[in-house]
């Protein structure tokens, strides 16, 4: 065990955007069994502390690799690129225009005849855009086109935010 390894190596998966989620679940379960602090109860304080560290590293790793956005951001981090703390970065104006329109569309959902259907179709549109971006990211990353991959992750961040907003409105309409 070595927490200096990246999440992929630590968990035992190839460094790639494409991840077999059931394999991720299996491996994390195996590791949890091996690392669980209870197994170290009889050992020294130092080893117990290590086991707690491993567990928390494992949990963070699983959460990161499970989410497409966090996984993509992490893959870029491994290349020394951090897209999570950028404030104002030049973004393709056409893309921003589209983001504006999608958000305007969301804003008008409650006034539609059938708000649930309007919300459903908006969500479907956003999810298919996200899916396309995820595929593009995977290809760009694989072929080491990191600048393009970075741009794609930035776009994913806008769309993921929109998904959160859509879900929030869904809850509001339900309630």
């Amino acid at each position, binding site marked *: 065990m070595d927490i200096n390894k990246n999440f992929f190596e630590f968990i035992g998966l190839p460094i790639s955007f494409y991840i077999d989620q059931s394999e991720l679940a299996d491996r994390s379960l195996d590791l949890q069994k091996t690392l669980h602090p209870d197994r170290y109860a009889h050992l020294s304080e130092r080893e117990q502390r290590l086991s707690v560290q491993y567990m928390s590293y494992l949990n963070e790793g699983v959460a990161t690799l499970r989410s497409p956005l966090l996984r993509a951001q992490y893959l870029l981090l491994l290349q020394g690129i951090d897209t*999570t703390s950028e404030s104002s970065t030049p973004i393709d104006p056409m893309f921003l225009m589209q983001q504006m329109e999608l958000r305007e569309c969301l804003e008008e959902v409650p006034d539609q005849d059938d708000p649930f259907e309007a919300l459903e179709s908006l969500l479907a549109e956003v999810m298919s855009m996200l899916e396309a971006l995820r595929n593009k990211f995977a290809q760009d990353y694989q072929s080491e086109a990191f600048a393009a991959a970075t741009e794609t992750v930035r776009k994913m961040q806008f769309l993921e935010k929109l998904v959160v907003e859509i879900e929030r409105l869904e809850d509001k309409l339900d309630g």
Partner: protein
Amino acid sequence: MAYSEKVIDHYENPRNVGKMNDKDENVGTGMVGAPACGDVMRLQIKVSDKGIIEDAKFKTYGCGSAIASSSLITEWVKGMSLDEASELKNTTIAEELALPPVKIHCSVLAEDAIKAAVADYKEKQDK
């Protein structure tokens, strides 16, 4: 996190929300976004023949600080020349609204938006 009174005022009563015709020759449009938080901001200015900003409109999808920053800047730029508007600094906005350090980037977004709007207007005039 507690918002300052001024942020809350601009958030609850945003000034100059709206849209101008971006095909209009006298209108400059700035579109900016902050990928980290997913905020999107559109800021538009209407410029007189003498090069003075007559009107400004904005639409921001984002947090209270981003909305307040863009609302405030549309108030400020009215009556300014293009050069004066381009010289507006995010720190002035952040100070006026008493933004906490983690929200400074919202004022940066507003500064970038006004610069982008001025640039878009100038580009239209050069054509």
